[in-house]
């Protein structure tokens, strides 16, 4: 096996390990190669993105079970662009020793693309004493994994010193403490509900117990979601009929859809219809009345009203502006 391939496989291994402990924010640097290892790399990167998103997604099924653990990296940077101070988590995340970070140019922890971005913003930062901004930067770990982040950058002015310093903060989500926290939560709830002696009750911390959606239920709801998006122009059936069509019942449809997508079926349908109409108004020459029909509204005035309510301007105003 070639040396490069070995190195790539090592990176994949590392990333998988990080993901296993709940750190979904690492990425592997892409190369221009077109081989199987590279295909594995893009899949892994995209999978991590999907998982990362799912973790911070508020309306996720049984979200009460996912405890979000926030990880933060902080850097204090002096006027020369050198790191003056950092926190322990930053060292862990970058897998570097504190001595490898402090006193080094902040630039050296970024990937090449981010270096140019940073240099640009650094020029602006140096001219201003009070300044806040945010910027997408990608860090590089010791093992050459990449961490894309949104950084919050603040200039701090001191009263006793002339030299300004810059504070850079990164917030990441991880759930590597998930199990521990879950156990703790369980044991606490068990104490409070000891009389009931019902282990199932201990699972839920809410007063109203959550109904558990099975994998099958979720599949059906996802199918429903897709059917709505693909049939915006058609008359929408009653919830009872729609539930039947999906092979579930009205209650599960109503309850589950809200759990999964954070909104009711009808609200979602309306939102999607209006979203599609907005695209068509902006980017096509179709008459507004046809668009209103195309997205399933019975009458144009009704459509226009709903549109204004959602976006704050009428369809015709948007069309005029788009021309």
């Amino acid at each position, binding site marked *: 096996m070639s040396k490069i391939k070995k190195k790539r496989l090592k990176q994949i291994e590392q990333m998988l390990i990080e993901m296993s402990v709940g750190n979904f924010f690492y990425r592997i640097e*892409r190369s*221009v*190669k*077109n*081989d*199987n290892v*590279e*295909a594995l790399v*893009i*899949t892994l*990167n*995209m999978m991590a*993105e*999907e998982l990362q*998103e799912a973790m911070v997604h508020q309306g996720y099924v049984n979200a009460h079970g996912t405890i979000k653990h926030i990880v933060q990296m902080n850097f204090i940077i002096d006027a020369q662009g050198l790191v003056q101070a950092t926190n322990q988590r930053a060292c862990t995340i970058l897998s570097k020793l504190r001595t490898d970070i402090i006193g080094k140019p902040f630039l050296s922890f970024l990937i090449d693309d981010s270096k140019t971005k940073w240099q640009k913003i650094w020029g602006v930062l140096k001219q201003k004493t009070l300044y806040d901004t945010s910027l997408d930067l990608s860090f590089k770990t010791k093992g050459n994994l990449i961490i894309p982040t949104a950084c919050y950058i603040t200039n701090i002015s001191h009263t006793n010193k002339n030299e300004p310093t810059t504070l850079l903060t990164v917030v990441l989500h991880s759930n590597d403490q998930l199990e521990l926290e879950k156990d703790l939560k369980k044991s606490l709830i068990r104490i409070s509900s000891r009389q009931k002696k019902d282990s199932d009750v201990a699972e839920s911390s809410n007063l109203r117990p959550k109904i558990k959606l099975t994998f099958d239920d979720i599949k059906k709801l996802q199918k429903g979601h*897709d059917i709505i*998006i*693909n049939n915006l122009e058609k008359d929408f059936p009653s919830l009872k009929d729609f539930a039947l069509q999906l092979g579930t019942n009205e209650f599960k449809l109503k309850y589950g859809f809200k759990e999964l997508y954070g909104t009711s079926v009808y609200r979602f349908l309306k939102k999607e219809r209006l*979203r*599609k109409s907005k*695209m*068509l108004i*902006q*980017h*096509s*020459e*179709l008459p507004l009345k046809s668009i209103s029909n195309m997205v399933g509204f019975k009458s144009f005035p009704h459509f226009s009203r709903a549109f204004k309510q959602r976006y704050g301007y009428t369809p015709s105003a948007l069309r005029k502006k788009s021309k």
Partner: protein
Amino acid sequence: MLDFYENDFATYKLEDDVLVIIYRDGVVVDLKAAVQVVEDRLMLQQGERLAVLVDIRGIKEINKSARDYLALEGSVLIKAVAIIVEPPVSEMLSTFYLRTSKPPIPNESFNSIEEAKLFLESL
């Protein structure tokens, strides 16, 4: 209707009622790029629904927000999409996208432009 257009990310060409979109080599598609690609496509189409052949072999990376945007807004006024891929990298990219983002229109990937055109004609 214009029959050729290009931006920083792709070129657009109208060939026998099929809109051919070819992504540039080594391009990284983020949300801003995805919005641009869709906007320019719709500008070109002038409200007409078309079949689209898209060559993604040049794409180096496409991030989550871009994938989500393309799956939702990217399919407006498209009859069907044939995607040109090259195994293994861009083929994997396409498989992943189709499986996770579930775009609401017929999508299929091919290794050759001829096959892709046959698919679009058969619809």
